[in-house]
């Protein structure tokens, strides 16, 4: 027996062979002929904010319990329909505003009352498979006591060069309505009681099978938002006054995503590398790098550890607090607009048994101003750490 590296001839034959319906489970572009129903549970919990950050006592933060039901139904060889129902309960306190403490040290003030809300979401998707690609259409609605979001979109894939190259493009539009609790009340006179925003995203990408073991993808996306883009529950300290969080009413966001998937047959494992660059006209620039390893164990198990690094610079108008007023009137002390970085560690386990699939995952996320490449004058005291545990079960019919 002699063996050399796979040649371009072998790659051509393999590409042609894998396009055959007999290998359909390996070729994504053919509709799965089996229905699939599943349930996913996840519990998200933010770490307590320290007594030091609040200059008083430590405080519990946000937590979310999420239940998601999923149904996938192929119809004939061409169409596939999917529906997702999500029920979530959220509770806890969140950062409200930041005041200057001793020698200018930022002190986080948390929202006093515990917020409790329930979110219901319904998403539907129809997908049509062609011999050279697929088209998908999605529509979704998400409702909470103070927030309603309606969105719809479509995307299309074209497979070229015997499926070695896939070109994708898509667009998504959402219209959101905000009716904040206690808006224009005696207690929160500067909190709005009604607002809307619109978001439009367009994206396009190209994915290339470089060889039998390697797939790379490059995608660009652009998002335009207008309307009320502030957080109605947040405030900012401005020269002794507490004012409503107030951000520009337009935002242009650009992102470049790169994905690499490298399979090693000898190891029965695959390396997943994901990188993202983000930039917007609020002055936020961010980078993400994620490295994961998907290892097959035994017949049916997959274990996937991964680590993700994220870093961003702050928005032009962001300050932890403001000692003077701004000419443009934009104020936000939201930690999500501050300069910071984060490291997230995740471990996932998947198993299949007959028609059943099971998965569990644990993620720990740690954010810190020390993890960013951007300059940080004063770290935001509201930076969050969180853990998510999730489990799912699904069955094919």
């Amino acid at each position, binding site marked *: 027996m002699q063996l050399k590296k796979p040649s371009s*001839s*072998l790659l*051509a034959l393999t590409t042609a062979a894998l*396009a*055959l319906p*007999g290998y359909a489970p390996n070729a994504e572009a053919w509709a799965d002929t089996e229905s699939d129903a599943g349930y996913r549970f996840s519990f998200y919990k933010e770490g307590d904010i320290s007594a030091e950050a609040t200059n008083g006592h430590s405080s519990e933060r946000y937590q979310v319990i999420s239940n998601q039901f999923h149904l996938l139904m192929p119809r004939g060889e061409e169409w596939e329909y999917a529906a997702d129902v999500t029920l979530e309960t959220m509770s806890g306190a969140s950062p409200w505003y930041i005041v200057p403490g001793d020698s200018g040290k930022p002190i986080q003030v948390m929202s006093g009352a515990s917020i409790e809300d329930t979110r219901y979401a319904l998403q539907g998707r129809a997908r049509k498979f062609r011999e050279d690609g697929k088209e998908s259409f999605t529509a979704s609605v998400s409702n909470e006591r103070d927030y309603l979001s309606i969105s719809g979109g479509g995307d299309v894939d074209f497979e070229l060069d015997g499926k070695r190259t896939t070109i994708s493009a898509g667009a998504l539009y959402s219209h959101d309505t905000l009716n904040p609790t206690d808006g224009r009340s005696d207690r929160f006179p500067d909190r709005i009681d009604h607002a809307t925003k619109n978001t439009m995203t367009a994206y396009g990408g190209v994915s290339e099978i470089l060889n039998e073991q390697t797939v790379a993808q490059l995608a660009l996306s652009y998002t335009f938002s207008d309307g009320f883009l502030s957080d109605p529950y947040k405030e900012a300290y401005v020269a002794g006054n507490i004012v409503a969080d107030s951000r520009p009413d337009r935002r242009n966001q650009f992102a470049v995503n790169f994905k690499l998937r490298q399979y090693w047959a000898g190891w029965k494992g695959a390396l997943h590398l994901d990188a993202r660059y983000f930039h917007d006209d609020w002055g936020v620039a961010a980078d993400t790098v994620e490295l994961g390893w998907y290892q097959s164990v035994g017949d049916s198990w997959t274990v996937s550890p991964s680590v993700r690094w994220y870093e961003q610079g702050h928005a032009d108008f962001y300050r932890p607090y403001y000692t003077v007023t701004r000419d443009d009137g934009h104020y936000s002390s939201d930690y999500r607009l501050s300069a910071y970085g984060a490291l997230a560690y995740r471990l996932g386990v998947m198993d299949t048994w*007959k028609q059943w699939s099971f998965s569990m995952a644990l993620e720990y996320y740690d954010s810190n101003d020390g993890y960013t490449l951007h300059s940080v004058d004063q770290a935001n005291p509201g930076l969050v750490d969180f853990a998510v545990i999730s489990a799912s079960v699904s069955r094919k019919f």
Partner: protein
Amino acid sequence: MQIHSYPFKAMGSPCELKLYAEDRAQADAAADRATGEISRLERVYSRYRPDSVTTRINRSAGIARGVDVDAETAGLLDYAASAYGESDGLFDLTSGVLRRAWDFRSGRVPDRKRVEELLPLVGWDKIIWRRPRIVLPVAGMELDFGGFVKEYTADCAAQACRAAGIAHGLVDLGGDIALIGPHPDGSAWRVGVQHPRDLANAIAYVELDQGAIATSGDYERFMEVDGTRYCHILNPRTGWPAQHLASVSVLAPQCLIAGTATTIAILKEEQGPAWLSELGLSHLCFERTREGVRQC
């Protein structure tokens, strides 16, 4: 977990499924799905059935508008086109027409003129293939899927077993073997390779824990006339049988590719083993010698 064996006959060869399952019922259900898939493909691509896709295509030879084919046949034709290109024209679905000159049961070598008369009907490059339509422009042309459908079927049958929940086992269609998965303890299957001259015995054993192995040789259908062996693997350019290699086995992730590679290697004659190395697939080749065969 128990191993269950299902011997049967299909595609003109002795076949066997070996399936590890929790119980007999699960193994039976998987075997039913696999054999159902095998008889479906045998029916669809048979040259002998009047309602087969092959017959429908071959009946359209000489008709300019051709016929439209289904997605699976289109996939096989795309694959055949790719194999034709990668083999410099040696792997050719149209070469089956040469059977009209070569009757291996007759014990008679056809005269050169008879073979030459058929050559104008051979050549994938003469076919017009634009998915989903195929045109065989010359009356008398034929497509023969026999050269690779057995291997494709082995892959499909293995896939059907996996879909039925079988993770360990193999599908053996007359020596073309597609693994469903290794033994339950993860160990490789030990697969015998047919001795090209001593048909009751194996000439070698190969350890296989994933993928497939296919074997072709000059012993499957042949005749010996005046001390020369004429086998069924016919060169589409000359119309005459390959002469150099007695047997070629190839390991590949798909049995389809393994089978295609064995055919091409035999048609490459002396260059066959080197071409397989170039292709990047593990292989075992035996060449003819005066005394018998020898590994090369």
